[in-house]
């Protein structure tokens, strides 16, 4: 019996060696606790792809490690960026691949093919520290372009594989900051700039322009794009889709009152994630709807943790990729939209992380057409209660941030080669 087992194990190694052809040395960038800089490790994976090196993503193996062909250039770059790695010989690599491929292990190998081209949807006066994703991209040294309404509406999105939505308000209510900030220069400037852009692009209202942008993004995803949204870009995007045929903006936002029947006129068949939500119509209230669960939290980090779900790496590679992390329980963080009310989430959506024992969903994923979307609640994973005007987070002090890793999983996920789904 033992010899049969040994024989089959060797056969696996042999087959894997044939499949992957790694008689040569490899570099293993492990992603479990000993990794010195998880965030820059994603940058190394991305950089390796741009330089033509093969990169395999070993799902659930040591926190979702990366394996590349050995090269002194890669090795040196890892050192320069402070990313821990191990140079391994061909047979050790073969053993790792065999372990990952073994049916009993909830692991899999995903081949990353090309560095995805990244666009971040941000207004022209944006600063990198306004947004966790751009912070992460800058820190990981992953290049990105900025796009805004004009570029989106002029069909530039098809040039990109991955689109991140800044904590934008797609409902056209300027973040619902009116009560607190309407006299502040930044608010006045934002409103003036948005209105001018809407006029320039032929829209009477900013809310109409934002709806058009939301529709264009929807088309982009339908055609195979990857969309990732954080904070208020999540619920406002869905609200904008559902509110396509009604006016939910009050007079201070768009110059006329909202449709008195706007709640009833919401079309939940058009939204991706949420249904049956109730709008917060009060323009002075800093909330869009009952989707967000921020108000139910006490604004205290104690006890605010969310838990990642575990998925079958071999059968559900996409959610598995999105939840690769070195820990499964992660410190929560607030945002204008912090967490999503589970009872309002459509059945078609995959929940990736939630706060156990509550109705709060932190992280979710779904498909639309040929593309996918991911929503991640909260503003900055390493600044529990980020406020307007707060200083930027220095990611060199949070090199191993599990919350930021989830963002970077999304960045690399479009690089994955689509595999035949196991049946």
């Amino acid at each position, binding site marked *: 019996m033992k010899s049969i087992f040994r024989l089959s194990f060797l056969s696996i190694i042999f087959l894997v060696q044939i499949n992957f052809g790694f008689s040569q040395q490899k570099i293993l960038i492990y992603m479990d606790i000993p990794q*010195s800089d998880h965030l820059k490790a994603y940058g190394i994976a991305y950089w390796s792809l741009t330089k033509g090196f093969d990169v395999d993503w070993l799902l659930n193996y040591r926190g979702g490690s990366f394996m590349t062909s050995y090269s002194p250039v890669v090795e*040196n770059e890892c*050192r*320069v*960026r*402070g990313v*821990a790695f191990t140079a391994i010989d061909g047979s050790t690599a073969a053993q790792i691949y065999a372990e990952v491929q073994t049916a009993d292990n909830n692991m899999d190998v995903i081949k990353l093919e090309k560095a995805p081209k990244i666009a971040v949807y941000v207004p*022209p*006066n944006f600063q990198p520290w306004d947004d966790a994703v751009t912070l992460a991209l800058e820190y990981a040294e992953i290049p990105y372009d900025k796009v805004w309404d004009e570029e989106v509406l002029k069909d530039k999105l098809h040039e990109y594989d991955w689109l991140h939505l800044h904590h934008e308000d797609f409902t056209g209510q300027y973040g619902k900051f009116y009560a607190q900030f309407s006299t502040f*220069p*930044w608010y*006045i*400037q934002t*409103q*003036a*700039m948005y*209105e*001018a852009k809407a006029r320039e692009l032929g829209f*009477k*209202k900013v809310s109409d322009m934002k709806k058009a942008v939301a529709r264009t993004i929807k088309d982009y995803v339908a055609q195979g794009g990857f969309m990732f949204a954080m904070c208020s870009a999540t619920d406002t995007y869905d609200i904008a889709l559902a509110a396509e045929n009604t006016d939910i903006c009050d*007079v201070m936002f*768009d*110059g*006329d*009152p909202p*449709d*008195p029947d706007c709640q009833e006129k919401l079309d939940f068949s058009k939204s991706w994630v949420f249904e049956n939500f109730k709008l917060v*119509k*009060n323009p002075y209230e800093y909330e869009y709807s009952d989707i967000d669960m921020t108000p139910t939290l006490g604004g205290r980090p104690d006890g605010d943790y969310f838990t990642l779900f575990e998925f079958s790496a071999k059968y559900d590679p996409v959610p598995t990729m999105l939840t690769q992390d070195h820990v499964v329980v992660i410190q929560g963080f607030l945002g204008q939209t912090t967490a999503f009310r589970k009872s309002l989430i459509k059945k078609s959506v995959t929940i990736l992380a939630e706060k156990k024992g509550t109705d709060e969903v932190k992280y979710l994923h779904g498909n639309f057409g040929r593309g996918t979307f991911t929503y991640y609640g909260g503003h900055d994973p390493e600044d529990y209660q980020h406020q307007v005007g707060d200083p930027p987070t220095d990611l060199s002090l949070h090199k191993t941030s599990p919350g930021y890793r989830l963002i970077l999983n999304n960045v690399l996920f479009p690089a994955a080669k689509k595999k035949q789904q196991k049946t």
Partner: protein
Amino acid sequence: MRYTPGLINILTIFSLITSRAPAQSIDEQNLFRLAQTYEQAGQWETALRYYKDLFQRQPANANYFEGLRRSYTQLKKYPELVAFLEGRIKIFPQDIMIYAYLGSAFFRMEREDDAYAAWERAININPLNTSTYRLLADQAIDNKLYHKAVEYLLRGRKAGGNSLLFVPDVARAYVLQLKFDDAMQEYVNLLLENPASLGEVERQITQFAGLPHGIEAAERVVKDACEDHRNNVTLRYLRAWLAMERKNYNTAYEVYQEIDEMQNSNGVELMNFARRAFDEKSYDVAMKAFQHVAKKHHDQHYGPEAEFFFVRCIEVINEQNDSTVFHSDSGTKPTSYASTEAVPSYAGAISLYEEIAYTYPKHPVGLEAKYRIGYLKFFRFFDTDGAMSILQESSELRRRLTGNPDGDILIGDIFLAQGKLDQARDQYQRVTSMPILTPNQAQLLTFKLAELDYFEAKFDDALQKLQPLSVNSNADIANDALLLSLHIIDNRKPTDAPLKEYAHAALFERQRKYSEAAAILQNIIVNFPSAIIVDRSYIIRASLERKSGQSTQALETLQTFLTKFPESILRDQAQFDLAELYQTTCHDKARALELYQTLLKDFPNSLLSGEARRRILFLRQANL
């Protein structure tokens, strides 16, 4: 505030009960409260019903009219609203507010021409009434019709015969269209007539300064206005302020020169500007401004200050260009410690300070100049006698006039550098007893006294003094105290002998007797080969060789160390120093890059790896 259905029901029942009350006014009041309650609850249909009822009872009541109008508006029942307003106009044909509302209703029905016609009817009631134009502009803004708002405001201005009427409103409406040039022209016109509004104009400009092209447009318009109005000082203040907002201190300086002349202020304006430029670290411009004041207005009471700060700027600029000084901004360490390299530039500053000290011997500025001379002579030239002489002559008076004991502390440092340890100790102790000391200064002096003990191999005394400093994490000196404590504790076993030698070498190093210090370190290496401190002796020896310009020798020392001590915990430091030598002294960037990379490879967990990475990136960019 939100009302619950329960509360609304109670109010409804209450209203039904009270509706049977005999007094009609009470009934109406209750109905009105009810209507308001529904309105606040966002139940506009019900509110509308009640307001209609009330309005039918008393069509002249302005509150009922307003409630009904709001309800129609919120429910977007624009045709009904239009009919209602037209009916109202028949009763109150002179009420311009109704026309204003009517225009808005038409506009929201997408009947723009009718909207403008309604507003025109309001104007025609009394074309000279400027309030009408303001009212219509507000309506236009509410409807996001900023161009119409400007139009009405300008017509109102013409009707009122006042060219400054509505300036802030017109400007704001222009800004909302991102027409910054036009907005700025309004503010310029306002300032031409009313210079006292400068502060308000600056405040308004900040509202759009953050928008793309906003501040550029403001600068452009104000510059043109300054050319058109050559005698207007207010415009120049605005221009200078705009330039400084953009950190363009050169332009601001030019403008302040004009202002100073126009105001006949004898340099006061330029002095204020120079101080701000200095505080903002724009030393080159500050230097020019101080120099100008010092030359042209030296007889004014601020003349000496201008002279001093002119030289102070020169000193700072010299320091920025001084390769012997560590610059945290560029992240580069000194290329060499040879003081001769710094001589010419600092010599100029010292000579100018000497002039000031001579001219103003008892003035705070003269005493400050003497302190700077002592400081430069000691730190830049290591002229201990020269520094001591001038500090001893001036420190006491300086301390009495300014309350600053820096000069007294520096005297102690100089005694130490001269090897006069007893005098140094006396001096530090004397300063310690002064009541003017800040807590930081007091802690610094305790540390200096502990250092003296260390140099004299009185290790227990040193540790005793360092102990309270090490545990006080709020003290600036805590880290230094902790390092010295650990150094002493770690190297006393099994015997004090090598540490005594090492402390002696450290004293020589402080006295810049590098050869003597290196010789003692060599003795430690030879005589105490198994002492822990031998490793550090190599590293420090190389550093001393480098400081005395013997870079080849330093390279050799570090390489010998790396070969001979494969297990030393200081290998990463040696590797780093080696790379730094190649980078900054030998100027061999390729070799330096290679060595920093080797450091990362061989010592991935070194505390120096972060700095090594930073330097690799710097060298890579430099190689591009």
